[in-house]
């Protein structure tokens, strides 16, 4: 069973998909792109109020950096990651009209959805970093050069997971209900609201295998503490993420020719 038709990855089409996704999410609002920056800032204010004023949260490792910057630096990339996966999950079913009528490399759809979400949140992330700087936190701006590869790796991981879930979603519609609580669980087991030292030793064992924990730790080191601690583990993470992405693409393509039967 072979299909010897080359389905090209159409680059212009992919760009159009991404732009369309961004427009769909933001341009239909009256204020349009302003929300890209406003929403994260409002959220930041809410978290600052809740955690600093009500909970009076303190993290020893954060030192005089304070809780809010400690949270914010990790929280925005997580939001991008989690929202990207949840949105991409339904992308195949949402684009059924296109898939049944035109032959193209279907993986472009979930990938474009993930990419659009990442781009939008990256803009918000930069806005948050600028505000943090203005509020007195010293951000290590030069380390952005290293932050970008870390976020790129998060993007690849999100793409890989989305290829898996969006393909399965076509067949097993229940996934849309299962996925949000799973992502919430992942959020709370990743040291985003807290530091990994809070975890009991038994769970810390598992936390080592949580790629998000690794990403979050790197982002804090780079931007807040100005440390660069890349080791052989970094290479391992890159390797695992890339292999996982390759597997998920193969998995996706196994099903993509049959989506039309199930949409």
């Amino acid at each position, binding site marked *: *069973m072979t299909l010897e038709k080359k389905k090209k990855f159409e680059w212009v089409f992919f760009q159009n998909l991404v732009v369309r996704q961004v427009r769909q999410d933001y341009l239909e609002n009256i204020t349009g792109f302003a929300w890209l920056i406003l929403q994260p800032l409002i959220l930041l204010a809410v978290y600052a109020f809740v955690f600093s004023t009500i909970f009076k949260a303190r993290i020893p490792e954060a030192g005089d950096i304070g809780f809010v910057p400690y949270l914010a630096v990790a929280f925005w990339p997580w939001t991008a990651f989690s929202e990207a996966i949840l949105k991409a999950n339904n992308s195949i079913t949402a684009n059924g009209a296109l898939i049944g*009528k035109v032959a193209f490399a279907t993986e472009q759809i979930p990938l474009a959805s993930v990419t659009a979400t990442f781009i939008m949140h990256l803009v918000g992330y930069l806005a948050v970093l600028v505000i943090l700087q203005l509020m007195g936190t010293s951000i290590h701006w030069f380390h952005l050069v290293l932050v970008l590869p870390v976020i790129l790796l998060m993007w690849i991981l999100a793409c890989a997971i989305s290829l898996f879930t969006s393909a399965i979603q076509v*067949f097993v519609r229940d996934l849309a209900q299962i996925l949000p609580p799973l992502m919430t669980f992942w959020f709370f087991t990743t040291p985003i609201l807290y530091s990994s030292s809070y975890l009991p030793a038994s769970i810390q064992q598992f936390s080592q295998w949580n790629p998000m924990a690794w990403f979050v730790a790197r982002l804090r080191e780079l931007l807040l503490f100005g440390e660069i601690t890349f080791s052989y583990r970094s290479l391992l993470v890159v390797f695992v993420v890339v292999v996982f992405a390759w597997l998920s693409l193969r998995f996706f393509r196994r099903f993509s020719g049959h989506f*039309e*039967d199930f949409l």
Partner: protein
Amino acid sequence: MDTLVRLEGVSKIYPRIHKSRERLQAFVSLLFGREPAHGARVLKDINLEVVRGQSLGIIGENGAGKSTLLKVLTGVIRPTSGRVMVHANIAAMLELGAGFQPDFSGMENVRMKASLMGLSNQELAERLDDILAFADIGEYIHEPVKHYSSGMVVRLGFAVITACRPDLLITDEVLAVGDESFQKKCINWIQQFLEQGGTLLLVSHSMYVVQKLCQKALWVHNGRIEEYGEVFPVTQSYLAWHEKRTAKEKEMQVKAKGDGAYYRIENFEINGSNDNETPRFAMGDNLDVELQIFSPDDRPPVGVVGVVRADGTPVYGVVSDNEDAAPVKLAENLYRFRLRLKNIALLPGSYNLSAHSMDPEGIRVFDSCQMPFVISGETKEVGYIRLPHEWLD
């Protein structure tokens, strides 16, 4: 020869997916590369080759598998077994919608579709005017596609295709939706496309379109290739099959109602001639019409005879029971009317004599029959009929 598409032993099974358990089963069998356990086998062992410059019409009854075949050809769906090889830049119009997203404007959809077919932004910008001119839907281009009529969707979809200059054009019965002038425009474009060496695969129920545009035809029946060859023999045997089937259905209908349960026309003649030649008369001749009707319950039926102009305009009609004309009983269940149209005043031209049989109450028409005839002669009068007249001082 330059082969653009080749199918080898292609079969397609649509898995049964009504229940979520069946969806899960289908998912698992796909995961392990097995054939689905339950499902509808829509294509069975299709072998086909399309060479460059060919134009192939695909015909067949509804549900025969034509659209699925096109979807497999274009790569929208993967066959359950068999090989599909494509070496061409394909543009396809499959069903309505053409892959447009209903919530976006026509313009945005054009942009998406063009980029999907490999047009760069610059190429699209150059050809956009042509696309809009071909689609000719005016300001609607900025409206969401969900507000379009089906004809407008097809116009826009076809317009994008014209801009993409594909090697192989595949259309699935979409031209039928456009209005008369747009259909003509499309057919002209396709003819030009074929003259320039383009290749065409067309699904249509209009044998006229198939014969006009295609050299070859493929008749698909129950998911198999029933006949493949030159367009005229294949379309003719397809039509013959349809006629046979319709005749069979009629027969079955009668049988189902009991022994000959309706009033059908057994025989219909003008002046004793009902052979293949069109009867000809001169103005002022008498037309003797004979109409035999089968009456299943042996009650005398009602007969209707009328004259219709060749373009369908009714000229005159008469119903037997309004004039208390009773038929003659020829045999058990068989009645005969005879009618003489005296000194016929029809002006020269082609006409149809039509007859209908009705039940004895004259309420329902059961059967109809038409026979062409010609009134010959020369006259400078105009109209259908000569009214008795005289010029006065």
